[in-house]
């Protein structure tokens, strides 16, 4: 049962600039376990350390106190083993690479040969519904399309964990809902574990199997809401009474923390 845990955090605290006048405790005493195949959203007011938490899991920031384990290893080992992929709010595509070459960037770094990269890229382009855009440059794509390229890139090396930092935050509402549907389809297909940071309550409820609600800085996980809506999530899910009930539950949990959108 223990190897079913993908991410475990125990008493995790992150302090920026310790000892200096601008010392800042971003998150304190975070305790959570994320299981294989789960879709967990982190939601909370601005500056509550959601993104920091994601970076602690990904070894992009060192923890100040406590323990983080990813697949039973330290975050550093997990990063070196390429256990996870990250998707940011900005697509962060490299300007000088075409869509195809952006998607196979991770495979290139991991030393896969060109044949493997080509076939994988083709497969991923069809997964994110971007066939025929292989030779386009990022600036020729809309924001939503760029984000789909970023998603394809993240999935290219089949990581067991996907860390997503407000990936749809910069998109308009309609594109956003379409991307959520697409993400659900891909998640059902790949069975990847996802940790998803968001500001949007309906987004968190629609996507997740669990929603972790965070308090303002220093951020802690104040409540975890189970989202037992039927799988797979579909367009009609958003219209179910149970959906509204869960949205209300998360909203209640966030009550008192201002600044929530």
């Amino acid at each position, binding site marked *: 049962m223990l190897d079913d845990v993908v991410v475990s955090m125990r008493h995790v605290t992150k302090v920026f600039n310790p000892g200096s006048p601008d010392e800042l405790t971003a998150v304190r005493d975070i305790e959570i376990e994320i299981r294989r195949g789960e879709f967990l959203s982190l939601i909370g007011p601005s500056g509550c350390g959601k993104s920091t938490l994601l970076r602690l899991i990904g070894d*992009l920031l060192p923890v100040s106190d406590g323990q983080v384990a990813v697949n039973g290893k330290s975050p550093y080992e997990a990063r070196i083993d*390429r256990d*996870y992929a990250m998707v940011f709010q900005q697509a*962060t595509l490299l300007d000088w690479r075409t869509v195809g070459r952006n998607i196979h*960037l*991770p495979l*290139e*770094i*991991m030393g896969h040969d060109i044949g493997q990269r080509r076939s994988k890229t083709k497969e991923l382009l069809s997964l994110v519904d971007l066939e025929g855009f292989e030779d386009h440059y990022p*600036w020729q794509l809309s924001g939503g399309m760029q984000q789909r390229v970023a998603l394809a890139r993240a999935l290219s090396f089949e990581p067991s964990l996907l860390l997503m930092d407000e990936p749809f935050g910069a998109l308009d509402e309609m594109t956003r809902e379409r991307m959520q549907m697409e993400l659900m389809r891909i998640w059902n297909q790949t069975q990847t574990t996802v940790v998803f940071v968001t500001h949007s309550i309906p987004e968190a409820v629609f996507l997740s199997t669990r929603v972790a609600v965070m308090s303002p800085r220093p951020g802690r996980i104040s409540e975890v809401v189970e989202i037992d809506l039927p799988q797979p999530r579909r367009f009609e899910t958003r219209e179910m009474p149970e959906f509204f009930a869960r949205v209300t539950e998360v909203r209640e949990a966030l009550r008192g923390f201002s600044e929530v959108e």
Partner: protein
Amino acid sequence: MSAPARVGSLWHRYVRSYAPAALIFILFLVLWELAVIVFQIKGFLLPRPSAIWEAYLDNRTVVWNAGYVTLQEALGGLILGSLLGTGMALATARWTTVREGLLPFAVAINSAPIIALAPIFNAWFGASNPLSKMAVVTVMVFFPVMINMVRGLAAVASQELELLRSYAAGPREILRKLRIPNSLPYLFSALKVVVVLAMIGAIVAEYFGGAVQTLGVFISQQAANTRFAQAWSGIIVGSLMGIGLYLLVVLVERRVMPWHVSLRGPGP
């Protein structure tokens, strides 16, 4: 849109974008010619464009041969200086100690009047040896290329850096896949400045003494003998070469980085 229509509209676009400049240039030459005649300006102060043209026709073999030698000096210095500059910049990206130890000096020397070294290099290599001019150009080119390139290698978006780190990319891969491509726009803006500097450097260095058949020596000798129309024809050949080098850089830039904001079309 069909292909011929595209070519047609492209041609129209060229005509429309270059026609004003061409017209102004012609107007400028006409006014210059008229001004010299009307105000009876002495030929040693400002020769008429037509006189310069005649002098050019009379001397064109000499001028172009001289220009060719000077161009070789400029090109030699350009290549050497650019290679050294990029090489040093890459070293600073790899080893922070190199950057911290070297960069302040680079910035300081970049502000020094490098052309003043010309007589010294004449003494080192011999005035008629093209190496003495190449050395001046090399030093002139080295610093702007290095400083810009260092800036380009360092100015990487933090999220792009996080992305590569998340793939467990090492410093060498980050350099190759991220820092070097990111520095290309910086390198090219340095090259555009430096190609013009190279021609200036080579010609001015020749004013301090050089082989008989070089542009700088030709211009200064003609001027000393009050043959100003001839001197001007030399200046014009030097300018054409500078413009040619600049355009060459622009052309290469378009080939190498069509994706850059300054070169690409409007987005979706």
